[in-house]
């Protein structure tokens, strides 16, 4: 039997800030799907630097987060950490540190596990406790896309 690396799926964002919380919405919806047993879901919210410990002990990471990519709301891209631009806001702030800052620190502090980012284009980021209509409509498709990739990865890893 092949030893498969466990995948830690991080749902990122602040769900009090509308579409910024899309990662959290996706991870929550994934929790209701049938998923391979080598996947661990974490509602990481606005965890910022607190996530260093989660990153340190993960074997592989899939981070789901909002990203401004000048695309249509709800569009998504699979992105590598190298494609993330360093934050323009203060570097190494503790509060609501963007994931990219936490990731950069993780790279310096220990061997960061292989990481992929599922980046989703938001429609509006503002204080609001629900998704914009555009993203609410796209949510099932986003969950489906992630779910699909998790099973593909599982099949590839277990050699079937």
């Amino acid at each position, binding site marked *: 039997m092949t030893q498969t690396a466990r995948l830690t799926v991080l749902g990122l964002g602040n769900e009090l800030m509308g579409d910024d919380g899309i990662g959290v919405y996706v991870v929550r919806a994934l929790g209701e799907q049938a998923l391979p047993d080598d996947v661990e879901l974490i509602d990481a919210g606005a965890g910022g*630097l607190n996530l260093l410990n989660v990153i340190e002990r993960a074997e592989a990471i899939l981070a789901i987060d909002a990203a401004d990519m000048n695309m249509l709301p709800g569009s998504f891209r699979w992105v590598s950490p190298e494609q993330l631009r360093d934050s323009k806001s203060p570097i190494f702030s503790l509060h*609501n540190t963007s994931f990219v800052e936490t990731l950069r620190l993780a790279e310096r502090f220990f061997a960061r596990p292989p990481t992929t980012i599922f980046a989703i284009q938001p429609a509006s980021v503002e204080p609001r406790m629900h998704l914009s209509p555009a993203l609410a409509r796209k949510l099932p498709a986003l969950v489906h896309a992630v779910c699909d990739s998790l099973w593909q990865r599982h099949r590839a890893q277990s050699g079937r």
Partner: protein
Amino acid sequence: MIRESVNINVQHVTRVEGHGNIKVRANNGEIEQCELQIVESPRFFESMLIGRRWFDVHHITCRICGICSVGHTTASLCATEAAFGLTISKQSLLLRDLIFYGEQLQSHLLHVYFLAAPDLLNAGSVIPLVKTHPDVVARALRLKKFANFVCEVVGGRHVHPISLWPGGLKHCPTEAQLLELKRQLEQQVLPDMDATVDLFAELAPKLPGFERPAAYMALKDPTRYAWFTGELVTSTGQQVSVDKYLDVMEERVVRDTTVKHVFHNGESFYVGARARVNTNYDQLHPRARAAAEKLGYAVPNHNPFANNAAQVIECVHCASEAVNAVDQLLSMGPKYQEPRVAVRAGRGVGIAEVPRGTLVHDYTYDENGNVVDDNLIIPTTMNVENCEQDMRALVPQMMDRSQEEITAALEILVRAYDPCISCSVHMLDVEFV
């Protein structure tokens, strides 16, 4: 040469929590403008709570901030419990203490190691320290890992705790988990805290020797070093129960904007680690008092830059008291206790001494347990006026220095207050190549 004019405009102080712009303009030695501009956020969250059920409120407020999740949750629970007239068991109190210590440690340690230490070790950030001071970075990460572990054991997960509940907790750690906490505390955390005190005792003389006496306030409890119990005590001699917090603080719109600052008797005041250590020094754990002596920290302390030292002192206190809390829990034999809640209409105020200072949650519920009115005041809103007053006092003392030196000093000052902007968002910025 004495400078006649300064014009400083820092757009986002690096290594501060969230965004902060510093604006200082001085001409002929006169300060014309001196502002620390911080986005004021709680207003948005106040309106989000209206109409919410009592069992949703603390889950919403815990999302306000990833670093102060436990603090917002605790203040929220205290407010709801006060409104409903609930008391919590000894076991619940100990578990809440424990997770509170965990968050306090996590936040203070990140602040002193990742934000303050690089300033004092002449590094631009924590990154160069990985090479120059690997032992310091390794210790910081070890301590942080433990703090995270506490939050996980008591809170039920890594970030945004879910176990804390009005009337108690929805989860109880096992004896094995508590024994593991105790083992790590005694074998690793307390020695690492000793080393932390030694490091900052060495660095403390590098802190600017600036003093400006000002009013301060903190919770005080005759039975313990207060975190979320007791009454609000001010350095000006006032003491009020938490529901009367508006007797000692007043929110006021400043500078013809919508930005509000908080005043005490018409003057600025500060909250946070320095205010708490000043107020409750005698109730610190003996180990923490010993640390204060080593750090040359005498109370009352009037140097805003010394907030970092006060944070180290509080870390020693939290780690030492965590051992006591774990011992008491183990001797009681932790058992799950279902929180009991009877809803009633009324107002309740919860105040918690979160890492950055005094946090107020004030809720009014209807008879069905829905929020009909609420008020939130975060510590940064209280501190910002005092920080500006410090800047006003500091700049004239530095007119013989270069504008770069003045700017650097102002940035370190702002960082010492550890200001926080809870509504900042952190979307990713992707570059397609």
